């Protein structure tokens, strides 16, 4: 279903299946961004994604040439509200917002009245009354940004909510894959550019907002997606994989605890962080057992295609989910992922700024 532009982001709609024959480069650039908030990637059409990636290309060029970007956020207050610790996401949003001329306010739960038990909505109202216009928020509870977006007068960008979604991470991951797997001349064709590509996501799927968001964007991009890990950490995914992302039969994915099958001939191997808390809750016997069976070592990486990309959303436990020599090896694009966070977030902020001036 589709909804009107004004409220489309508040509704968790079916992400449209990529449609062959959508407009080419000209049409893509002519496509208009209508999402006031970005709470999840599930609302993004393929044209939205191409527009965002194309805008990020332009932002990356500006950054690379040390030119200054058009200050579309001059005079705009971007407040970054973090209820969970974050380094790369927070810094990346802050740099992106400042490059676009925004005034940036950082709020973290440790240094605010949040620790005194103030409700999320009260905190939001406080920030709004002190000038917040674009609210970038991270929260430990799935769905929290939807509550804020219901009441907030400005724009809400989800910087990670519980196990649910991490939209900008999935977009920068897709952007990173595109830079390596798609020739510049073929970018912006309007066609899903990961058709015929295999992407394996390995690790703790159960608790991963990065994996959930990547499933939406990677299947929208046409990738053949495999998810792998120890069975307790794959809980629930089998039914989703069989039904297909967004219920679309052409967006099914494969769920397995057979690591070799998952990464065999893969173009991309994405590993996820394994947290020590998982042992305490009885989901895994030990980190050592995880590393020995699911850790991405250089030996296992040879099962993937030669030159396959190795990705990780960070922070890493080297020696657990990924061997140090792989994380720092020639196939790793992990630091590039972090760097790509800036142009992606600049692109998102500028597109959202466009909805502000239109309103």
């Amino acid at each position: 279903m589709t909804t009107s532009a004004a409220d489309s982001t508040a509704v968790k709609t079916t992400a449209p299946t990529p449609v062959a024959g959508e407009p080419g480069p000209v049409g893509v650039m002519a496509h208009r961004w209508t999402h006031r908030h970005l709470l999840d990637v599930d609302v993004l059409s393929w044209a939205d994604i191409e527009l965002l990636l194309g805008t990020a290309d332009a932002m990356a060029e500006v950054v690379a040439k040390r030119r200054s970007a058009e200050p579309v956020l001059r005079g705009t207050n971007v407040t970054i509200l973090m209820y969970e610790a974050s380094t790369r996401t927070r810094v990346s949003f802050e740099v992106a917002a400042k490059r676009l001329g925004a005034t940036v306010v950082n709020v973290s739960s440790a240094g605010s009245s949040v620790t005194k038990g103030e409700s999320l909505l009260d905190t939001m109202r406080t920030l709004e009354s002190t000038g917040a216009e674009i609210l970038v928020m991270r929260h430990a509870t799935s769905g929290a940004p939807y509550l804020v977006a219901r009441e907030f007068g400005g724009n809400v960008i989800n910087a990670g909510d519980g196990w649910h979604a991490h939209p900008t991470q999935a977009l920068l991951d897709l952007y990173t894959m595109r830079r390596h797997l798609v020739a510049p001349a073929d970018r912006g064709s309007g066609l899903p550019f990961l058709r015929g590509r295999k992407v394996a996501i390995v690790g703790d799927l159960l608790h991963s907002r990065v994996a959930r968001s990547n499933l939406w964007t990677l299947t929208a991009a046409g990738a053949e997606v495999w998810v792998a890990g120890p069975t307790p950490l794959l809980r629930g995914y089998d039914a989703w994989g069989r039904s297909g992302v967004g219920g679309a039969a052409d967006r099914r994915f494969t769920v397995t605890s057979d690591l070799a099958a998952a990464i065999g001939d893969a173009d991309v191997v994405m590993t996820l962080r394994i947290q020590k808390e998982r042992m305490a809750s009885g989901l895994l016997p030990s980190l050592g057992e995880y590393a020995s069976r699911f850790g991405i070592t250089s030996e296992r990486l040879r099962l993937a295609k030669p030159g396959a990309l190795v990705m990780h959303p960070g922070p890493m436990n080297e020696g657990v989910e990924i061997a140090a020599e792989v994380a720092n090896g020639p196939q790793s694009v992990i630091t590039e992922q972090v760097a790509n966070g800036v142009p992606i977030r600049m692109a998102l902020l500028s597109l959202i700024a466009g909805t502000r001036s239109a309103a």
Partner: protein
Amino acid sequence: MTLAPGARGVELGGSSDIGRKVDLDISRAWLVDPGSGREGPADLVVRDGVLEAATWLDGADAEGIDDRGVVVAPAFIDLHAHFREPGNAAAETIATGLAAAAHGGFGTVCLMPNTTPSMDTPWLLAGLREKVAASGSPVRALAYGAATAGRASETLAPIGALADAGVVGFSDDGSPIRSATLLRNALAYAGMFGLPVVDHPEDATLTEGAEANEGLISTVLGLKGWPGAAEAIAVERDLAILAEVVREVPGARLHLTHLSVAASLDLVRRAKAAGLPVSCDVTPHHLALADEWLAGSRRFAWEALDAEGRGRDPWRDGAITAPPYDSSLRVNPPLRSAVDARACLIALVDGTADAIATDHAPHSLVDKDVEFGLAASGISGIETALGLVLEAVDAGQLALARAISALTTGPARVLGTRAPAGSGALVEGEPAHLVVFDRADRWTVIADALASKGKNSPLLGRDLPGRVLLTLVGGRLAYAP
């Protein structure tokens, strides 16, 4: 006062003051009498609160009357409601709860003891009775006593003293009776008085931090899964204990409340077939709504099944029409799959489920208008119960007569000798306990339309069939528009 003008009339003499005895003439309505198993066109006459005559119509008199318009039935009995006094009058008071019950067509409510403090001593019951009397409502408020002291699952509550004080059973609802030993002892002890232990079946080791029914929806939304096995395990445990206890204590009785998964209902079905003294209820929300509502679907559970009875993907169907994570949908047990909802309906149809109980759980905005995973569990449901059940009837999922019996004679049987005299039945010459509603008259659920202080309903903004026109309890007016 004429409440439903036209050929089918409901004429209420005098004022609409709550609590007064009424004169009432109902002509050409559809009467459902679950006591006799009969339904059909009828006229009713009430004088000074007494049901003087209920006259079945036939031939030309009955022409043009069907079960799609004004329906008269015995006032409903709710086996499971939470009015928040003492302890949380901001969420509900006895008075607002009773008003809400009457608005929902209920003439009798059984209140759960998870107040603050817990209803685990007779003097707290005295306080409850004072508040009921002060409310002026004729709705009958019955009470469960706590099964364990402070509902802490450590020692037994004073079951005998509570029985003497008039409780209708014992429950730690809100929580399961975690200790199997205490459940066994509570069943045996309450069995001396022939009173049921009402268990909220949940294996807490499987539900720590759980947010949503485990399945496709919880996976896509990233909510911590609440497995159906958590309920089935507890049901199986309770039944195994009951089977042993009842050999020595013939009066022992177990009632399992708000069953929500197919596996639990199958266990109860088999236990009943084996002759165990067990009963159970299902809620309107568990039979009509499914977990896909958390994702923003707003179709009924029976609309979310394919021809083979398998659950459908709401994203595939384009059924997502509302924002996700509406905290009014957070409830314990959680909304289950459409397949489980169907199992609740089947259990009602085949009699495995004895009653429809609302689990009316009002909450204040402070506790509910927060992040989904932090929101208090519960749905304010006593005023929307009839509407949801009638949606199932309208959709052909449930016969009207069965829906009514599950709201009247079914719960009365669970209460046994402690059911209030005359409740759940239509008896000429006795004070009238009646609900009158119009199936064809839809009403919009908005916060101001709810008498309950709890506005935590996922149905806000939605139209429901079956506007209640009148609730009479003991011949006295409990509700009129």
